[in-house]
C-alpha cells in the first residue's frame, strides 16, 4: 500500500430495507486505478453497495469516502462517480449524441463544445457513425457502448458498472470484456464492476470481493480466490469444487476440517498414478459429458462420495470413459485446499 488515498473507502457500511439487512457492516478499500469486482449471487448485497456508492440509496449506518472525502450525505449529482446501468438507462427520446452529451449539457457546457466532446467519447467506443440514431435503433452491444461513453464523457473519478454485460450473448460478452479492460487501462480510472458471473470477474479484475448475505466472504486477487478459497462458499461459488466435509476429509484425505479440490486438478485413469503425495481412490463413472474442449466426468467414489473431474481434450487422452466404467481418481495432496472455519451450513456441495 502506498500513502496515496484509496479511491473508495467504505467503513461499517450497512443498509437495511425494513427487516432485511442487504449490506451488513462492509469495510472495504479500493485503490485508485484498480479494476475491482464485486461478485456474488443475486441478493448478496453487491448491487446495493454499488447503489450506495453512487448515492441512489442512503446507508442505514457507515460512511463512504471518495479519495479521502466523506460523500455519504451527498446527492448522486454531487459525487464524482458515474454509473453504467444494468438496463443501460439511455434516454429514449434523445439520439445517441444527445445521450452522451447529457452530462455536459446539465453542467452548462455550450452545444458546440459538448457535441465535440461527446463525439470524441463516441469515437473511443467506435460509434461515431451512429451518433444520430435513437437508442431503440441500436443493438444491445451498441447500447452498452453508448452507456459507457455517456458515463465516461464527464470524466468521473470512479466508474460503477452494474452487471453491464448481463444482457449480451456469449460472443459479444467476451468481446466487450476485452474492450472494457482496454478502456479502463486507457482512462486509468477506478472501475467497480458488479457481476454474478465468476468467470467474468476472474477474467477482468485486479481484485475481487466475493459477497454473500450482505458481507464480504473473501477479498483477493483472482488467483487468491481460485487457488486458495477460504470458505466453502467461495470454493463453491468461484468455479466448481469438489467439497469434502469433516467426515469425508478424514476418510478420504486423511485430514481434519473441510477441504476442496478443483475438478481440473483431478485425473481419471484405469490403474491410478504413482508418485509422491499422489492419492488414488477407486470409483465408478456415473456420467461422462463431452464439452468439446474437454470431458466432464462425474465419478462416485467407492464410499459414495460424488466427485467431478475435468479432463482436457488433449491428443494423448488414453481412453474414453463411459457410464459404469471402473476407474481410479487421482490427485496430488498439494492441490487439496483447506477451507477456513467459516463454513456456512446449508450450502450443498
Amino acid at each position, binding site marked *: 500500500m502506498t500513502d496515496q488515498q484509496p479511491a473508495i473507502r467504505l467503513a461499517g457500511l450497512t443498509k437495511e430495507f425494513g427487516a432485511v439487512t442487504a449490506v451488513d457492516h462492509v469495510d472495504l478499500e479500493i485503490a485508485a486505478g484498480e479494476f475491482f469486482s464485486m461478485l456474488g449471487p443475486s441478493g448478496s448485497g453487491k448491487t446495493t453497495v454499488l447503489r450506495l456508492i*453512487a*448515492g*441512489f440509496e442512503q446507508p442505514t449506518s457507515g460512511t463512504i469516502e471518495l479519495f479521502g472525502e466523506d460523500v455519504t450525505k451527498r*446527492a*448522486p*449529482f454531487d459525487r464524482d*462517480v*458515474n*454509473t453504467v*446501468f444494468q*438496463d443501460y*438507462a*439511455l*434516454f*429514449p*427520446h434523445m439520439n445517441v449524441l444527445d445521450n452522451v452529451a*447529457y*452530462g455536459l*449539457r*446539465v*453542467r452548462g457546457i455550450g452545444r458546440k463544445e459538448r457535441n465535440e466532446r461527446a463525439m470524441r467519447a463516441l469515437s473511443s467506443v467506435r460509434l461515431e457513425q451512429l451518433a444520430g440514431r435513437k437508442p431503440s435503433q441500436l443493438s444491445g452491444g451498441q447500447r452498452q457502448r453508448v452507456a459507457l461513453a*455517456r*458515463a465516461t464523457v*464527464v470524466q468521473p473519478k470512479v466508474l460503477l458498472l452494474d452487471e453491464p454485460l448481463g444482457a449480451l450473448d456469449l460472443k459479444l460478452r467476451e468481446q466487450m470484456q476485452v474492450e472494457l479492460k482496454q478502456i479502463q487501462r486507457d482512462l486509468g480510472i477506478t472501475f467497480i464492476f458488479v457481476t454474478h458471473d465468476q468467470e467474468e470477474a476472474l477474467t477482468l479484475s485486479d481484485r475481487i470481493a466475493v459477497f454473500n448475505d450482505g458481507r464480504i466472504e473473501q477479498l483477493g486477487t483472482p488467483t487468491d480466490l481460485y487457488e486458495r478459497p477460504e470458505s466453502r462458499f467461495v470454493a463453491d461459488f468461484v468455479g466448481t469444487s469438489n467439497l469434502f466435509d469433516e467426515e469425508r476429509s478424514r476418510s478420504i484425505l486423511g485430514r481434519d476440517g473441510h477441504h476442496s479440490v478443483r475438478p481440473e486438478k483431478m485425473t481419471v485413469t484405469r490403474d491410478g498414478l504413482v508418485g509422491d503425495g499422489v492419492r488414488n481412490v477407486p470409483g*465408478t463413472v*456415473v456420467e461422462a459429458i463431452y464439452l468439446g474442449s474437454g470431458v466432464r466426468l462425474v465419478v*462416485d467414489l467407492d464410499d*459414495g462420495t460424488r466427485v467431478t473431474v475435468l479432463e482436457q481434450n488433449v491428443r494423448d487422452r488414453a481412453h474414453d470413459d463411459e*457410464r*459404469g466404467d*471402473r476407474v481410479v481418481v487421482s490427485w496430488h495432496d498439494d492441490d487439496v485446499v483447506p477451507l477456513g472455519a467459516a463454513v456456512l451450513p446449508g450450502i450443498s456441495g
Partner: protein
Amino acid sequence: MTTHAPAPPGAPAPDRARDTVPRPRRTPARAASVFLSTHPRTRLALLLSAPLFWLGVVYIVALVLLLVTAFWTVDSFTGEISQEWTLDNIITVLTGSLYQTVTLRTVGVALLVTLIDVVLALPIAFFMAKVATPRMQRILVIAVLTPLWASYLVKAYAWRSVLSQDGILEWLVTPFGGQTIGYGLPATIITLSYLWLPYVILPIYAGLERVPDSLLEASADLGGRTWPTVRFVVFPLVLPAIIAGTIFSFSLSLGDYITVNIVGGASQMLGNLVYTNVGAANNLPLAAAIALIPIVIIFGYLFLVRRTGALDNL
C-alpha cells in the same frame, strides 16, 4: 452395469400407468375451436361484426345526421324542418357577434380549465407514480377515482353550495376580510377544473409510471439536479401523456352546459346556445350548426396534437 451405478437419490421407478395423460375428447365445441383457429378471417369477422354494427349505426349515423341537419332550415311559420340545402345557419354562426363572443368565452374557459388541471395534476401524478409507497399509490388511485362514482349533477350542486353567499368558502375567507367569488365564469372554471381533474391525473400518472426510475437515476448520476431532470428527461417523456389529459379536459369543457347553468350565473357557453335552440327556439338546424363549432375546434386541436405524437399514447 446397474450394479455399479448408484440409483439417483429420491427417484423411484416411474409408474407408467399413472403417468398416462388422456387424449382430449372430440366435442362440437372443440371442433368449432379447431375451425376458428385455422380460419383467421372468419374469426375476425365474428369478433368485430357486432361492435362495428353498433359503432356504425349509433355513432356515425347519428353524427352524420347532425352535420346534415346543420345545412337544413326551419320554416319560421310552421316550425317544420325543411330539407333544403342552405349555408344560412353556418353563416349566421360564423358572423353573428353573439356566437363569436360565446365561442371565444367557451374556448377561453376550456383553455383555463385545462391549464389549471395540468398544473394541479402534474405534482399529484408525480407523487403517485414516483414517490408514494405501493400501498399509498393504491390509496391515491382510489382517491382520484372515487369522485367519478358520484353524479356529475351532485358534484356541480356541491360547488354551488360551497360558493353560495352563506357557503363554506364565505365562512372560510370572512375572517381574512374576503368574500365568496359568487356565481359566474370564475366559479364555472373552478367547478369544471374540479370535475375533469381525474381525467387529467390518470393519463399523466400512467405516463409517469412508464418512465423507468433508472432514467431519473441516470440523470442524477450524470449531474442533473431536479430541474434539469424534469426539463430534459421527465417532461419530454410524459408530454404525450399530458396532451392526452388535455384532450379530455379541453373537449369536455367545450361541450359542457350544465355546470355553467348551475354555477355560471348569467354566463352562457356554446352548450347553452345549443340547448336553447333545440328547446325553446325549436331551431334544430341552427343548434346543429352551433354544435359544429366545438367539433371543428377539437379537430383542429387534435390535428395540432397529432404532430407531437401524443395520439400514439392514448
